[in-house]
Each structure stands twice: as C-alpha cells, then as structure tokens.
C-alpha cells in the first residue's frame, strides 16, 4: 500500500505536466511562446517530467538502501543466533567431563552410612543429574537443528489427535477443558512433508505447556486449518499469559519468565518446538495477554 502511494506521489508531477500540456494543446492556456520559444504547456510537461524523474531516482535509491539495511540487520540477527548457539555448544562441551567425573564420584560415596552425609550426597547427586539433563537437552536442540530429517507425508490431524489423547492422560488434565478442532469440510488437512516423530514432540511440548500454565477450570483449544500453502496449527489457552516484552524471548534457549519460576521447567520446551518447526521450513508465533491467556501458532509449509 505504502509503495503504491510513493509511486503515485513520484509520478504526480509528470501527470500534472501532461495535463497542463494537454490543456495547452487544446488552447486553454495562453499561446505566447516563453523562453526558448516553447509553449507554457510544454514547459509544464518538461518540469513535471524532471521532478518525477528525480523523485523516482530518489525512491529507488531509498528502497535500495532500505533493502541493504534490512539485509545487514537480518545477517546480524543470524550471526547473533549462531554465536549464541556456538557458546551453548561450547558450554555443553566443557560441562560434560566435569559432570561425568562428578557422577562417578557421587556413585562412589553413595554407600556411606551416616544419614546426614547420605542426605548431602543425595542432594549432590540430584543436582548433578539436573545439570546433566540440562546439558543433554541443550545438545538435543542443536541436534535437531542439524540432524537428517526422516521426511515423509505426515497426517497432521491424526498426529494432533494422538497427542491430545496423550495429553488427556497427563496429571491435572481432567480439571481443564481440552478442545480439539480439526477441519473436515470442505476437505481435511493436507499432508505435511516432515518427520512425524519430531512433529509429535513439538505438539506434545505445546500441549504440556498449555496445560501447565492454565489453572484448573481453564480451557485449552487445539485447532488446525489450511492457509496459503501451509497448515496452521494453534494451541490456545486461558492461562496466566505472557507479558508483551517477554514474548519474543520465550523462544530462546533457557529463557524463563520471572513469573513462571515457581513452576518446574527447563526453558527448553519452546526453543525445541521452534527448532523442530524451523527445521521443517516453517515458523512459530506467539500471541498473549497477561491474565487472559496465550496462543502459540505453528505454520508448516505443505
């Protein structure tokens, strides 16, 4: 829309010139010849054309600059993401040996008889295990970003139905309303080329999240539809919601909202979902209002 407006504005002087020239030819303008013995209408046309030319060149240069900047910005963003991943993989790498040694060490002392000592060793064991899981999960996300996909046509409707069934068995799921809405008419969802196991993982994570952050009595809706060469899958909840300024960060590894820290979680569920969806050439979106709920949307190309 903006582009059309700019083009119209740029060509307006030319059009005005042409109109004046037309009026001159029709004899509606004074017929005395001006400087260089041209008619006033022709002057108007020439000036209009010149102004339009300058405007068009100006718009072109601006668009080109705009594009370059957007390009640079995107490259910078990609570089930053790449750097973050590199840092995480190095961190993961450097943590592995110490954690392996600590697990072996605690396994050696676990047999102690003193209850206070046994409790201390138990705590160390648990916490080392927690750290181990964290590094493993981090690595798995990196794996998904680089692993070979077992790509074949996936019936997303069937997959979502199955994951919703699994979610209904989760603790506390029966206290929340879980609604599934899949299109049947005029036709069902088209198959999505992808890795069914990874896609189930993504859907399961979204469902887990929605149920976790929605209080008893709340509602979780799962719906899918076909739109512009893609399948759009939405998981919406009436949970606590996410503040607007936190929304972009929920897709980042290990980000945990200050308001969600009371609930268990690693901050790796949504990054995993994003990794899976982007690996399929799709994209993820989140919409939320604090106190009302959150909508997660996956767009998967068909």
């Amino acid at each position, binding site marked *: 829309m903006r582009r059309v407006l700019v083009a119209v504005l740029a060509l307006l002087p030319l059009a005005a010139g042409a109109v004046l020239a037309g009026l001159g030819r029709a004899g509606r303008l004074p017929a005395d010849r001006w400087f260089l013995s041209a008619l006033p209408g022709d002057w108007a046309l020439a000036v209009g054309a010149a102004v339009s030319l300058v405007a068009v060149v100006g718009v072109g240069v601006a668009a080109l600059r705009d594009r370059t900047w957007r390009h640079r910005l995107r490259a910078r963003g990609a570089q930053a993401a790449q750097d973050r991943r590199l840092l995480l993989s190095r961190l993961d790498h450097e943590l592995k*040996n110490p954690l392996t*040694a600590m697990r072996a060490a605690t*396994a050696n002392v676990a047999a102690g008889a003193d209850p206070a000592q046994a409790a201390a060793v138990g705590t160390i064991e648990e916490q080392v295990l927690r750290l181990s899981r964290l590094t*493993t999960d981090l690595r798995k996300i990196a794996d998904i970003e680089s692993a070979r996909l*077992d790509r074949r046509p996936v019936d997303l409707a069937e997959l979502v139905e*199955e994951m919703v069934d699994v979610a209904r068995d989760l603790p506390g799921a029966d206290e929340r309303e879980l609604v599934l809405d899949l299109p049947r008419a005029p036709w069902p969802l088209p198959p999505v080329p992808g890795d069914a196991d990874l896609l189930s993982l993504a859907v*399961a994570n979204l469902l887990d999240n929605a149920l976790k952050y929605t209080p008893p009595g709340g509602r979780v809706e799962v719906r899918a539809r076909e739109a512009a060469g893609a399948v759009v899958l939405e998981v919406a909840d009436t949970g606590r919601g996410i503040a607007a300024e936190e929304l972009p960060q929920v897709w980042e590894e290990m980000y945990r909202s200050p308001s969600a820290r009371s609930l268990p979680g690693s901050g790796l569920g949504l990054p*995993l979902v994003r990794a899976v969806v982007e690996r399929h050439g799709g994209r993820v979106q989140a919409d939320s209002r604090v106190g009302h709920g959150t909508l997660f949307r996956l767009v998967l190309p068909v």
Partner: protein
Amino acid sequence: MTSVPTVLLVDDETAITDNLAPFLQRAGFGVVVAGDGDQALARIADTAPDLVVLDVLMPGRDGRSVLRAVRHGGGTVPIILLTQVGESVERAMALEEGADDYLNKPFDPHELVARIRAVLRRGGAAAGPALAAAHRLRSGPLVLDRTTQRVFRDDVELVLTPRATALLAYLMTHPGEVVSRERLLEQVWGWTFHSSTRTVDTRVAELRRAVEAGAGEPFVETVPGEGYRFARPVEAG
C-alpha cells in the same frame, strides 16, 4: 567367564578415571587405566583386556583412531565409546567403524556397568564377527541388510520407514537384551525428552505390523515396565 573380566578404561581426564576406576572395581571388574590413545593401544597389546571403555575426544591420538587401529589390526576386543557428540551421524559412524556400543557423556556410572555386562554377555570375540559391525543381520526368515537399509522376510522385501529400519537394526544388534524406551530414543532417534517415549511405542508397533504379520513367535517382545527386547537369536551374514 571364570575369572574377573578386565576393563581397560581410556580417558585423558584423570578426574573421570580416578572415580570411575574404583566404581568399576566395586562392580566386579579388574580395571586398567590409560590416559591417551597411544597408551590405550599399548595396554590393549600387553594386558589383553576383555573390554575397552574408550573416550572419543582425547588430545593426540583420539578414541576413533584407536578404534580404527584395533579393528584394522584384526582385534575383536569389545569397545564401548564414550562420545562427546550426540549427533546421529557420529553415532552411525561409531557403529560402522566397529564400536560395540557407546554412551554419551555425562552418563550414569550404573548405566556404564549395565552396558559393559551386556556387551560381555553378547560374547564379543568368541561369537566371531561382532553383530555391531556386521553388514547383514539374520534372524530366521528375517534379514536386515545394513548397507542398503533394506529388510527382507522370506526373501520378500518389507516396506519400513528409515526410522523403523534403524530401530530394527538396533534391536537386532542387541538380541536378548532389554532396551528401555529412553535408551532407544537416545540411540535410534538421537534425542530424549520427557513425554516422547510414546514415539518409541508407535514405531515399535509399526515395526511389528510389518515384520511379524503371521510370523508366529514374535521377534520383538514388550517387557512390561522396562522396554523392548529382540527375542530371537541373531547371526551376522
């Protein structure tokens, strides 16, 4: 096995060997430690261990190079790799090059003991060419060609997804062993997350439908509460 089996533990991190060696000893193994790849080759030659636990990433000669040197020299000592990289490509390569099993760091030391026992039970050297390195696996009428990733039953090719084929390959190289869903996920899929173990059940069901249709005695058994087991004997070739 009448005497205490000897395990050669190879890792350049002394913090790991110092703690893992006594743990393995208490689990009933004789332990020899090597701090780098060259030492590992020397210890394999002079102590003839029953099994080698080999770290992949070491300065100088790394674990993969030790593995290659041993296998090229005709050595059949079972080797468990301690990998740093969980990537499926690395994993496939490790098995192709003749590792008997592998564990991702950081691992549970009890899990290492379980794997050592399982590999030793499989027989290693005595059973001829290890299943892990075999190009063809056969169990009665069922044949898996690992080079072409094709599966046949009574010489008829079965249609399986690549993942189901990989799953079958893993189960067939660990016959009789109960494999947990978590471990299958880690080994075949390359990822483990809570809430994802049902994925394993779906693929095992697919595998069974394809492989066992009217086959009588099952190939893959469910062990309630534990996991799955390839129930029939498997041979290489």
